[in-house]
């Protein structure tokens, strides 16, 4: 096993919010089976995909993540019976919100991965990393003042100071 190591100009930062019963165990299985997958992903383990508050994803983008990955048990397999159904509804709307805001929804990936699907985990993560790498860096909320009226205020403040 073992893949050829490639060197890229841009390494995306990817946050993964995963369910502890399925996806985290799946990723664990991938690790104990010594499978290779992209090291760009930073995982956060949560009790259920229903626990993934859109706030987490907003915060991740705000703090400079280039992609966000969300994953949980397959429908019908939730440890808490229905958490992933709520997650599904929430993400349907959240993706549209991000799209309207101007963030490419390709940067948010949702996937069902069970504890036995270590191979799916590696495939999905590799493909997603590749996709985000092509999209490039997420537009930053830098400090540059763009609004003409705000510029006017800032200039006036500087002059009077």
């Amino acid at each position, binding site marked *: 096993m073992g893949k050829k190591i490639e060197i890229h100009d841009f390494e995306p930062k990817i946050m993964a919010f995963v369910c502890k019963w399925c996806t985290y165990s799946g990723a664990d299985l991938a690790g104990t089976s010594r499978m290779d997958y992209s090291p760009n992903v930073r995982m956060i383990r949560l009790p259920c995909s229903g626990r993934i508050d859109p*706030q987490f994803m*907003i915060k991740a983008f705000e703090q400079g993540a280039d992609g966000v990955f969300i994953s949980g048990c397959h429908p019908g397999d939730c440890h808490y019976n229905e958490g992933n159904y709520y997650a599904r*509804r929430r993400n349907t709307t959240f993706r549209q*919100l991000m799209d309207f805001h101007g963030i490419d929804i390709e940067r948010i990936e949702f*996937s069902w991965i069970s504890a036995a699907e270590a191979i799916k985990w590696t495939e999905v993560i590799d493909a997603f990393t590749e996709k985000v790498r092509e999209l490039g860096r997420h537009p930053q909320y830098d400090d540059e003042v763009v*609004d003409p009226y*705000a510029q006017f205020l800032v200039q006036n403040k500087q002059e009077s100071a």
Partner: protein
Amino acid sequence: MIEAIRNQARLLLENGDVDVVIGYAEGSDPSRTTPIFIRKAEDVEKLIYDPRCINSLPLYLNKRHEYTRKGWKKTAIIGKGCDIRAIVQLIAENQLKRDEIYILGVPCEGVVSHPEKWDGSLHDGNRASKCIGCDVMTPHETDFFPGDKPDVDRSTPYEATSKNVATLMELELDKRFAFWRTDFDRCFKCYACREVCPHCSCNTCITDETTPSWIDPAAHKKGVFSWHLTRAMHLVGRCTGCGECTRACPMGIQVDLFNQRMKEVVQESYSYKPGYSLEDKHPLITYKVDDREDFIK
């Protein structure tokens, strides 16, 4: 019309059926009206209703405000159609009980978008954008209504009332991002959009939480973005489109464009229109096994 409302309000107060009537009265200058709380029957002459009455009164029914804890058993409220939508949504969310409220419905022909634009009459130049295509000019849920209530078909899907939503959706992704960046540059986080919202009902808002501080309190663009996205996300499927957030914004940011877009999404995905049913559950606290999942890998 307003005479009938005044008489009914006087009757209610004299009989002790309600403790307070919330309505509109003349404001500080001729273009403005102000919300008024009437507790004595002789004061009902102060009540008025015309297109200047833009404030959303259901705000005062929200438990976040102290008014509901003043020992008032029953409140009468003057509601135009869009306000009654907000009341219905509050009842559907168990913020309020239907029998605590006596709704005095008014027939409404639209309101002005901003008090400054009032010039004695209502016309296309000063009409609020939410009033175009409104289907609750005759209110849908009332206890008292002056005159007859004609039947209105309210099954039509929700349409975004502002043309800007469609214009923005046609833009390229990075142009849209640039638009919001310019617009949010002006935001200095006064939270007026939160304070006027009849549906923001958390006792402690997430922006006021400090451990952990989820949303940066500084008026830096990072915090501004996350505040507006969080606000829009919390109102998905709950916003009834009164447009008060945009009107209250001192910097003229069109914060309700997010809400209007999300109303469309909720309508498309779950055929849910907030504010029309006392029983229907909010779409994000329920689910169907066969919900759409075309975006899930």
